């Protein structure tokens, strides 16, 4: 369901981020229209994680700005950014280990997150939503167990459930299939494809097999800049893209796969 | 407020800075590099003081003032050994739990204090500075006590030694590697467990040496360590955790601020003001004077 509007939902404009003397991002620009699915690849150190950090407000750009739905967000604290509807799933499962699976989902599903309004117990709608997601992620039987006691795969699903419960407008996924089997990877890819349309999704990964399954436009980052954009087939044919992966046999192998 | 007084206060600033630095240098290793908050650090200073006393008792009759040269290695080795035992038995089990480490080491500090009381009595023991340190240098009207100059020199020597060890030696390279990324350092063949033990023992040993210097100008008794511990932590925090030179800069800054405040208000009011000033400073620079930018630190 591509949007009619031309204005991008996420608009990164000329962002530069430096750590000490090292420039992690150099004048980087990137637009993602509402409802689109975009994949970000690039060799290690290309700046993928720094870009996500900048979008969610963890890192402040030295110059340039990040706009979300037309609003500059690159000076907002993280929780405000999150409040605007940007949700990030980290590489490592980011569940809240001291809470039960159900409490994790309830907190994610909450709309009002202020200190005073938090005293209100979850609404029936939020409760229903949490139970639905428990059911759908197959965690109903584990609902009352602290998340710390869940198996690794269960944590991954719980977190995906949390992301879904939060119902974000922009979803940032950082290597969502790390540690998954081939079958799980395929299912996750299918899930992400369905999410696009209602949500805008930006995926980082370097598992080319997974990227292939996503079947979405790809942006290649290199040395903190956008190197190429296009669909995966075109990029594969591009010798320059192969070039930047050289010296990194594992990823090169993936790229050829 | 004449010139002599102001010059005297400037020297006071330097003296206070040297003491703060001595008290804090060991912490720069254990807290700064290993993120271990050791509330028993003050007791290593105390141990250094008592070992100075013992050195004077044993070596004094034969060596006279030369006991001091026995005291330094004795205090270093004694404190380092104690530090190693502490790391091996307690701290090792608590890595990654900084708040628990704080509590456990506080317990150890209580035990060490009480042990000192059992061994040496609750009254302090006398330590007298060698006679060649008893005079004073006079520059114009300003008196510079030799023992103060000696403590300043000692602080500089320990600082220099630590700087060399951390930045120029192979040991220091390994320490910095572990500080940057424990896993990577381990993968590169660094024995991180042994290194932790060594760094902690070294920090304790440095505190022991500092204790020798402090014994020359302050009492040696079971509770003397507690008098230094909070200020020592403040020096490390203000300087920037993980930065030895930052700690030195912080010690100088706090030393001069103290001297200035004491020069113009009452001494005990200055102490309260200093503590508030440190908290205000951290508002401005929460990561200290010389912040260390490392991912490892951020996650800590």
């Amino acid at each position, binding site marked *: 369901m591509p949007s009619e509007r031309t204005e991008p939902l996420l608009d990164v404009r000329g962002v530069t981020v430096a750590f000490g003397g090292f420039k992690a991002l150099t004048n980087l620009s990137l637009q993602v229209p509402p409802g689109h699915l975009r994949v970000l690849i690039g060799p290690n150190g290309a700046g993928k994680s720094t870009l996500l950090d900048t979008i969610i407000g*963890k890192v402040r750009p030295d110059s340039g700005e990040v706009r979300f739905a037309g609003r500059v967000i690159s000076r907002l604290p*993280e*929780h405000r950014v999150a409040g605007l509807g940007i*949700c*990030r799933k980290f590489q490592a499962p*980011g569940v*809240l280990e*001291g*809470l039960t699976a159900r*409490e994790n989902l*309830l907190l994610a599903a*909450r709309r009002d*997150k*202020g200190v005073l309004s*938090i*005293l*209100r117990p*979850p609404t029936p709608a939020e409760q229903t939503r949490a139970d*639905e997601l428990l059911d*759908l992620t*197959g965690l109903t039987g584990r609902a009352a167990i602290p998340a710390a006691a*869940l*198996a*690794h*795969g269960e944590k991954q*699903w719980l977190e*995906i459930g949390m992301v879904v419960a*939060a119902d974000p407008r922009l979803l940032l996924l950082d290597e969502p299939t790390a540690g998954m*089997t081939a*079958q*799980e990877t395929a*299912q996750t890819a299918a*899930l992400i494809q369905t999410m696009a349309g209602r949500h805008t999704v930006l995926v980082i990964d370097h598992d080319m097999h997974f990227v292939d399954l996503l079947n979405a436009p790809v942006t290649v980052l290199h040395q903190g800049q956008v190197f190429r954009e296009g669909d995966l087939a075109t990029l594969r044919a591009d010798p320059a893209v192969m070039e930047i992966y050289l010296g990194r046999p594992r990823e090169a192998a993936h790229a050829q796969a | 407020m004449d010139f002599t007084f102001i010059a005297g206060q400037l020297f006071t600033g330097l003296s206070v800075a040297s003491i703060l630095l001595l008290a804090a240098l060991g912490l720069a290793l254990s*807290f700064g590099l290993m993120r271990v*908050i050791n509330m028993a650090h003050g007791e290593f200073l105390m141990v250094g003081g008592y070992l100075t006393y013992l050195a004077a008792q044993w070596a004094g009759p034969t060596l006279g003032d030369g006991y001091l040269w026995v005291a330094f290695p004795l205090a270093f080795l004694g404190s380092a050994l104690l530090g190693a035992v502490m790391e091996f038995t*307690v701290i090792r089990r*608590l890595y990654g*739990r*900084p*708040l*628990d480490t*704080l*509590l456990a080491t*506080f*317990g*150890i*500090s*209580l*035990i060490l204090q*009480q042990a000192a009381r059992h061994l040496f009595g609750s009254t302090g023991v006398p330590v007298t500075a060698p006679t060649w340190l008893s005079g004073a240098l006079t520059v114009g009207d300003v008196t510079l006590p030799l023992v103060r100059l000696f403590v300043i020199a000692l602080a500089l020597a320990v600082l220099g030694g630590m700087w060399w060890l951390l930045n120029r030696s192979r040991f220091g390279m390994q320490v910095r590697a572990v500080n940057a990324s424990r896993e990577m350092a381990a993968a590169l063949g660094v024995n991180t467990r042994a290194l932790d033990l060594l760094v902690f023992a070294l920090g304790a040993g440095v505190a022991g040496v500092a204790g020798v210097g402090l014994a020359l100008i302050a009492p040696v008794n079971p509770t003397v360590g507690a008098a230094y511990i909070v200020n020592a932590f*403040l020096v490390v*925090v203000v300087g920037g955790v993980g930065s030895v030179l930052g700690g030195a800069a912080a010690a100088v800054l706090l030393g001069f601020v103290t001297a200035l405040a004491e020069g113009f208000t*009452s001494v*005990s*009011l200055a102490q*309260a003001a200093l*503590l508030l000033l440190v*908290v205000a400073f*951290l*508002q401005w620079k929460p990561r200290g004077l010389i912040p260390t930018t490392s991912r490892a630190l951020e996650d800590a």
Partner: protein
Amino acid sequence: MKPSPGALVTLALLLILAFAPLYLGAYPLTLLGRVLALSVAAVGVTVVWGRAGILSLGQGLFFGLGGYALAMHLKLTATPPGDLPDFMVYNGVERLPWFWAPFASAPLTLLAVLTLPAAAAGLVAWLMFRRRITGVYVSIITQALLLAFVTWLNGAQGLTSGTNGITDFQTFLGIDLRSPGTTRGLYWVTLAAVALALGGTAALLRTPFGQVLTAIRDNENRTRFLGFNPAAFKIAAFMLGGLLAGVSGALYTLHLGTISPAMIGTAFSLELVVWVALGGRASLLGSAAGLVLGQLAKDRVSSAAPDAWLYVMGALFVLVVLVLPQGVAGLLARRPRAPQPPLQPAAPSPVPREVSDAL
């Protein structure tokens, strides 16, 4: 909601304690009243440390503010009208300092006991958490602030009575503080405060507020990315801890008939933490009970073997964190449950197709 076993145990214990004046002698009752007053502060530590993960070594600051607020009122009440408190006279102070004036009024004093420590805690927390100062830094800074406060109290003798502290009280709200009947009444008031602190805090922590605190303790960043502002929640938790410490300080001052800087110093604040750790830092009942039993044990052991006491105390600090990180409460909570079956190794748990359909 069905009451939890913890709530039932708490209720039973409170009931037993309510009848203590009938079966305890005068001294044990006095002692029990005092440690119960302190246990209110322990409940605050549970919120701040056990739940929100903030180790404050400066709870004595808020405890002291509550205690001094009340003590100033009691001192003014015990001073003949028109006179200055005796220690001011002995220090050459000639006019009542401005910040003493409001404490002539009992309602204002009670208001101050409830708001001043909480407000101070809020300010301290705001200063720290808005700059994202965390972990051991918070511990060091709170300890430094407490030290600054104590140093000021000692130094500003004409205003605070210095090391001697404020003492020699006569009446409170018209009640003679030195009559034996008052001891009993004060005991019940204290017990009611403990019950209120335990019940109110437990109710509060049962709301999603408690869950967010736990979430922040376990993973502050993740909580932030879920859209919660950890600083705001930590400030709230810290204020609650400050409020409870302040109430505790005021009660303790009433029990003891004096408050002085030494009562609120670093040793006090650390001891508070270790008894909470022993009882179980995450358990309200555990930490309150830990404090009460710990203090009672201290009273007995330090009488019998004063030399051994510091060894016992030191060993407790070490053993609790090494062997019993969740305290006695954690030990008790773990035992009754049947051993858990080993968790399934990351067995493929495919996302059912419905998840995607539901989107």
